[in-house]
């Protein structure tokens, strides 16, 4: 019995640590949704590129890890700017076309990735080794560090959105784009910034999981699925809701996986989403 409890506690802890990484990805989606009113399907691919970036920078080119991360960050920001400028801007306001375009971008990145990176799974050696024990719960240092950096990034994003002028502009556009434009807010630039930031968060999340999982070009799909469930459960456009839902779903998936098996845990998370949609259609913290 004791072993059982310990297993659940272990699942809970791992779930929270995974949840924070989900939050990073889902927050990018939330940010882009708030401004452009689309869910960006290409997000999972950016996460995959982040992870692959670590493999090619840190393992193949043998760059120091900080240089690899900086390079990934810069490239992701640039990619966000380019995608917004090339595709999203000219389709502003056309909901259907925008979402479909993001699917197209996702397909392009993924098929190019299969060609460029091959089907061979890639592994990245740990940045940090060792295990930290809390009572009987043992957590790899690596996951703890990734989660800690994740928390810092989430806090930074909070500060950006709620304590800066740019953040104010973002919230204004989300509230009422027309009025915001009339008040002199350059909505296109804010949208570009939101895309760049969202892409950067996803790429960094990918970079943090690189040593934890085996990498392949299809790895974005599972993560994008979880992120979609998170933003629905949290309430579309709500940052706090996204954070809560991310942690909740990370825990559900991890504990559910321990108790029921990985595939059934998917089903469990999906059932939770349906229940939330029935009971609180706008999500945990969304506006109706």
């Amino acid at each position, binding site marked *: 019995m004791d072993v059982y409890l310990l297993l659940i506690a272990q699942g809970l802890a791992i779930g929270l640590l995974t949840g924070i990484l989900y939050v990073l990805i889902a927050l990018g989606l939330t940010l882009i949704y708030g401004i452009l009113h689309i869910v960006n399907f290409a997000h999972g691919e950016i996460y995959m590129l982040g992870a692959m970036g670590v493999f090619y920078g840190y393992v193949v080119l043998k760059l120091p890890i900080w240089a690899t991360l900086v390079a990934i960050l810069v490239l992701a920001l640039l990619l966000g700017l380019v995608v917004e400028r090339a*595709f999203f801007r000219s389709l502003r*306001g056309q909901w259907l076309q925008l979402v479909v375009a993001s699917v197209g971008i996702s397909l*392009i990145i993924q098929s190019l990735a299969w060609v460029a990176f091959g089907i061979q799974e890639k592994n990245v050696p740990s940045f940090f080794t060792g295990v930290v024990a809390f009572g009987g719960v043992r957590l790899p240092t690596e996951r703890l560090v990734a989660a800690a950096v994740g928390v810092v990034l989430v806090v930074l994003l909070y500060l950006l959105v709620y304590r800066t002028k740019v953040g104010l502009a973002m919230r204004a556009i989300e509230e009422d784009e027309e009025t915001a434009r009339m008040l002199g807010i350059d909505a296109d630039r804010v949208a570009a910034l939101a895309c760049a930031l969202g892409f950067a968060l996803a790429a960094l999340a990918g970079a943090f999981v690189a040593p934890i999982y085996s990498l392949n070009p299809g790895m974005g799909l599972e993560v994008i699925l979880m992120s979609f469930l998170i933003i629905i459960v949290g309430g579309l456009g709500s940052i706090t809701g996204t954070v809560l839902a991310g942690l909740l779903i990370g825990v559900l998936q991890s504990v559910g996986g321990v108790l029921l098996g990985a595939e059934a845990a998917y089903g469990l998370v999906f059932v939770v989403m349906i229940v939330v949609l029935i009971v609180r259609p706008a999500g945990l913290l969304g506006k109706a």
Partner: protein
Amino acid sequence: MKRGLLGLVIAALALLPSFGEPYVLHVAIVVLIHVVYAQALYVIMRMGYLSFGHAGYIALGGYTSALLATKLGVSPWIGFLAGGAVASLFAWALGTVTLKLRGIYFSLSVFAFAEVVNAVFRAFEAFGGPAGIAAVPRPVLFGTRLQTHAQFYYVVLAVALVALFFLYRLQWTRFGFTLLALRTRETEALAESIGINAARHKTLAFVVSCCFCGLMGAVHVPYLRFVSPFVFTFFLSTDLMVYVMVGGLGSYWGPMLGTVLLTGLGEQLFAAGYYKSLVYAVVLLVVILALPGGLISLPRIFRRGATRERVVPADATAARER
């Protein structure tokens, strides 16, 4: 003129097995199956809703017919109907919950649903597990099992013609026109103000769409003679969406044109593996950005171009954010 052309095409399709190679028939079968999938998806895209999970409903139909035939020995003919029924049932359940909400909730939920369906089929040995179900029998007609391409081709052709005729006629019914009115938020509010229950109409449209996907999925699986969780994936859902968008949302013939061109092309690109996805995606983005009405709007653009009139893509479906 149009009617004559249609008759000619149907006659040509009916005569195809008498002069077509097996490979040609195979391509024809694949194209017909996908035309029905795309045309079914068009029912909901026409009302401004996107689905990233129609493959889930196709899989439900396919697995239903495969399981009934292999585990219970039920005739595949009944399996076809059961496939459509099971897909409809699940579509009704999800539609009731999500179609009251903004379109994006629906799109994401359907995507999640399809992934979960796949995970469940993968997880349980009763559903065949990761290996899937092998040796799915073909149906028997007048004592012969329809083993050859030519025999099975007629089954697919018959189901496809019935489905396509039904979906075509559906557009010109009161129900079909109502769906068109639900395309944007404003017109939806207008429709509700005169007493139309929008959520119920949308749910029914989704059920019709998934019913034909399930039915065709139930036909598709006996053609392949097997099914596994890797047959009907997310990429099928996106392919279908690409067909509809590339062909054009403005007319019933748009999705069909897109499907015929792209699946025909896809068969040629099959050996190229991942390049197929790449080609599809590039075509998709080019069409979305440069030709908002899809390929079907080309003739009209040429006609307008002759009179130097500016083309307003009326059927670019300005389905605004919902």
